[in-house]
């Protein structure tokens, strides 16, 4: 069920051909009709929609339907900009609404994919969203022209107003919306040329800020009875809360628990063991109570005995990773030329091994869902990156037909890839089924969230490079050893056992168009990139940036090592291999130039350039390392070319934020397992960057046009390598073991 959803969620459309549906313009622009009735709860108006994407009220309010989830990345505002521009709408009158996944199902997926990941929100839907808006605009103009009895071709639109040029007559979108909603959609539409954009490309303020400044934005963790009553037809008179404890040890199950010990505690309604949504047996115990604090307090006092499980330890797993680094058996991701010859004839061979530990997503808002089960219907209120997968999970967990299930999406308190997985959805439904007719809000503790992640997988990279006597790189072998995300989550997406997503950022161009946005932009004569799959029993997940993050460390730290070994400037050394990618060279040079690369000013700088999620990104970091080895990251200049830049100030926000996420992992992030138990369980041991460590970030947005690249993820990848290379410039020491944590940078 969730498999294809999770697949397309990240854009790793490997092997299944699940590149989204090829619904034509007619389907996505079908008029409201009965569909509009199903939307009655979404729009406070009796006027039918213009089409699936746009509703316009008599007061000119333009309501844009947004299928993708807003989790901070700004996609809600960006998608609204796409629609508003094609619609020639007055931006000040634009608002948004999430159509529910149930409505999408009932309307034959008119809004297509709800999955929000892989930096796909805008680039993955810009074509049909803009076409839908262009069709709506044509209908509004047609409605006005019909009323005036003039040809539509003599009319124009701007700022939510239709004008008939010859007569000078004008009318508003609101005045013709009802008539427009009755028209047949146009058979074909043409979207604007980028030169005509006014709202796309403008640094518009986000549409979702006001409530976030006053505590009024409702997140899943905040859902109360009144929020439930707004959406459901049922009439519950209270809402209960639940807290949960999942087996601390990987794979363990509940042997017994003494419910009687806590059943008399204040507020406690029920103590329940829950089935493992993804495996055998019961792997969790939850307490349902009047308030969450009561539920959690009772759970703390509840004796639970666990049995079984896996004695997995990250320390012991190192040996398996190391075995993979030198194994003869590996999947080939990219390569060419005569590598053996290059090494045989090398004047100098350089070798380095790097690691990437497990990371937790650590969304600020812990996992949660509110579910209401009434026997013949099940509804949830859920922060999810994949509304359709959540809907399928509700159906599966409740045993009800999917038509009798519904998902009300809530803005996410962070997602980063974690909230595409439906584990917490299934748990909430199971709990609601214990309390028919009463909504139950399941909220995980931070400790549960930290221990039961879908972790950024652990891998190691071993890179060997050959230099000739002139300092030219003549060969390179990058061996990745470690966990495959697809093997664990979407095994059917493997191709003859190969997880091509593991090679994100390193793949060949021109081989598979579905992976073209994850290709290597360096040109190397003799090289090999391969992967020895070593899968631990820890469940992996898609963590913002995914495999691009560690691959950037392996590739770009090593390019720096090679440049220094060759006695060459790291910028010039990289550019020598970017002759076939002017865009990659351009972002790298832009970041270097703005930073002052090459100046003799006593600053210590490091570079990184990558291509991922269809965008070109580079960074130049400046650091100081004091005599005691303490690091200060002083300044980062980042350049990004996402093709088209829909909202420059939000791109800047994503780039700045990427350094917090990427550098938090580099500095502190690590989940270790001992005897199958995650050791880092809260922010005291899994720290995140505070403002004192935050560098100044200067963002250069340089859209070269002609393509749609991602924004939310690619810059994460250049964060750590640029800083690690700058640390070398400052100290002459290479940090190859992450996180930095308490390593003395003068003595690594």
């Amino acid at each position, binding site marked *: 069920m969730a498999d294809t959803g999770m697949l397309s969620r990240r854009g790793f459309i490997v092997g299944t051909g699940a590149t989204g549906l090829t619904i034509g313009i007619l389907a996505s622009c079908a008029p409201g009709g009965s569909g509009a009735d199903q939307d009655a709860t979404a729009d406070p108006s009796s006027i039918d929609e213009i089409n699936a994407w746009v509703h316009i009220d008599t007061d000119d309010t333009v309501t844009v339907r947004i299928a993708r989830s807003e989790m901070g990345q*700004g996609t809600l505002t960006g998608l609204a900009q796409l629609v508003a521009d094609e619609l020639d709408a007055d931006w000040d009158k634009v608002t948004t609404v999430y159509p529910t996944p149930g409505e999408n199902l009932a309307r034959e997926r008119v809004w297509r994919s709800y999955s929000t990941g892989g930096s796909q929100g805008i680039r993955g839907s810009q074509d049909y969203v803009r076409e839908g808006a262009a069709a709506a605009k044509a209908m509004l103009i047609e409605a006005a022209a019909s009323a005036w009895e003039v040809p539509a071709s003599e009319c124009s639109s701007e700022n939510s107003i239709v004008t008939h040029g010859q007569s000078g007559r004008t009318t508003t979108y609101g005045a013709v919306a009802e008539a427009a909603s009755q028209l047949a959609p146009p058979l074909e539409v043409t979207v604007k040329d980028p030169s005509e954009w006014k709202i796309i490309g403008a640094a518009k303020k986000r549409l979702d800020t006001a409530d976030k400044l006053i505590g009024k934005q409702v997140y899943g963790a905040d859902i109360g009875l009144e929020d439930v009553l707004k959406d459901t037809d049922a009439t519950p008179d209270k809402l209960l809360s639940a807290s949960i404890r999942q087996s601390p040890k990987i794979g363990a199950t509940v042997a017994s628990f003494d419910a009687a010990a806590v059943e008399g505690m204040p507020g406690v309604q029920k103590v329940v063991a829950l089935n493992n949504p993804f495996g055998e047996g019961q792997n969790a115990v939850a307490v349902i109570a009047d308030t969450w*604090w009561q539920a959690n307090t009772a759970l703390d006092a509840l004796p639970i005995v666990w049995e079984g499980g896996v004695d997995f330890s990250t320390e012991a797993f190192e040996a398996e990773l190391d075995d993979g680094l030198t194994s003869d058996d590996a999947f080939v991701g990219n390569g060419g030329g005569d590598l053996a010859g290059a090494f045989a004839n090398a004047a100098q061979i350089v070798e380095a091994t790097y690691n990437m530990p497990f990371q937790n997503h650590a969304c600020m*808002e812990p996992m949660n869902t509110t579910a209401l089960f009434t026997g013949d219907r099940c509804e949830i209120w859920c922060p999810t990156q994949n509304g359709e997968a959540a809907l399928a999970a509700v159906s599966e967990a409740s045993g009800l037909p999917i038509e009798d299930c519904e998902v009300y999406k809530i803005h996410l*308190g962070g997602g980063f890839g974690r909230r595409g997985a439906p584990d917490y959805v299934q748990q909430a439904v199971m709990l609601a089924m214990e309390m028919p007719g009463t909504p139950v809000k399941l909220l995980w503790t931070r400790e549960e969230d930290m221990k039961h992640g879908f972790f950024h997988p652990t891998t190691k990279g071993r890179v060997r490079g050959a230099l000739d006597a002139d300092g030219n790189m003549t060969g390179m072998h990058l061996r990745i050893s470690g966990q495959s995300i697809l093997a664990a989550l979407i095994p059917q997406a493997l191709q003859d056992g190969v997880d091509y997503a593991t090679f994100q950022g390193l793949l060949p161009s021109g081989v598979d168009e579905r992976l073209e946005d994850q290709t290597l932009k360096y040109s190397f004569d003799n090289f090999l990139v391969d992967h020895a799959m070593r899968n631990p029993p820890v469940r992996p997940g898609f963590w913002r940036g995914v495999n691009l993050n560690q691959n950037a460390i392996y590739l770009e730290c090593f390019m720096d090592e090679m440049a220094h070994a060759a006695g060459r400037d790291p910028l010039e050394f990289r550019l020598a291999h970017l002759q076939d990618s002017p865009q990659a060279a351009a972002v790298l040079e832009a970041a270097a130039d703005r930073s002052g690369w090459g100046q003799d000013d006593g600053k210590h700088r490091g570079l990184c350039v990558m291509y991922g999620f269809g965008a070109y990104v580079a960074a130049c970091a400046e650091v100081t390392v004091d005599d005691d080895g303490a690091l200060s990251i002083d300044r980062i200049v980042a350049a990004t070319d996402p093709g088209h830049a829909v909202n420059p100030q*939000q791109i800047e926000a994503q780039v700045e*934020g990427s350094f917090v996420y990427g550098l938090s992992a580099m500095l502190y992030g690590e989940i270790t397992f001992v005897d199958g138990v995650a050791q880092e369980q809260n922010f005291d041991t899994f720290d995140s960057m505070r403002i004192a460590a935050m560098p100044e970030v200067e963002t250069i947005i340089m859209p070269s046009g002609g393509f749609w690249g991602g924004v939310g993820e690619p810059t994460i990848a250049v964060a750590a390598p640029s800083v690690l290379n700058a640390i070398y410039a400052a100290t002459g020491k290479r940090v190859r073991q992450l996180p930095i944590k308490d390593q003395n940078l003068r003595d690594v």
Partner: protein
Amino acid sequence: MATLKINGEKKTVDVADDTPLLWVIREQVGLTGAKYGCGIAQCGTCTIHIDGSPVRSCVYPVGALSGEEEITTIEGLSENASHPVQEAWAELDIPQCGYCQPGMIMAVAGMLNDNPNPTDEDIDAEITNICRCGTLARVRKGIKLAVDKS
């Protein structure tokens, strides 16, 4: 049973004395602006004011209150988001997911109550809230803009 004065209103709640103030505010008083993030005073999403000073309410037992303290949550910080910090936050479009921002705003507003003109070092020492979306660069700019607006 505890009595508290919150955003200018007296409230009496029937909870155990060791219940964290955060959960009293969220579940008994019904104000959900202050968020749960860690429960161990690490992340700061639960920050509120007690007599104008920032407090991490997730570890503050309600029984420690006398009932006379002025408790302020994000909902009571200002009328119409008119506090200089809120105005600066709006102008710079700071929130991303926004979950940490009530705590962030209250931490900054609390700092400015005691120290209306903080240096960068003061900011580094006083503002230790976690934001996983990574708004930290704009938060620093926002603090400076809020100072200018005050």
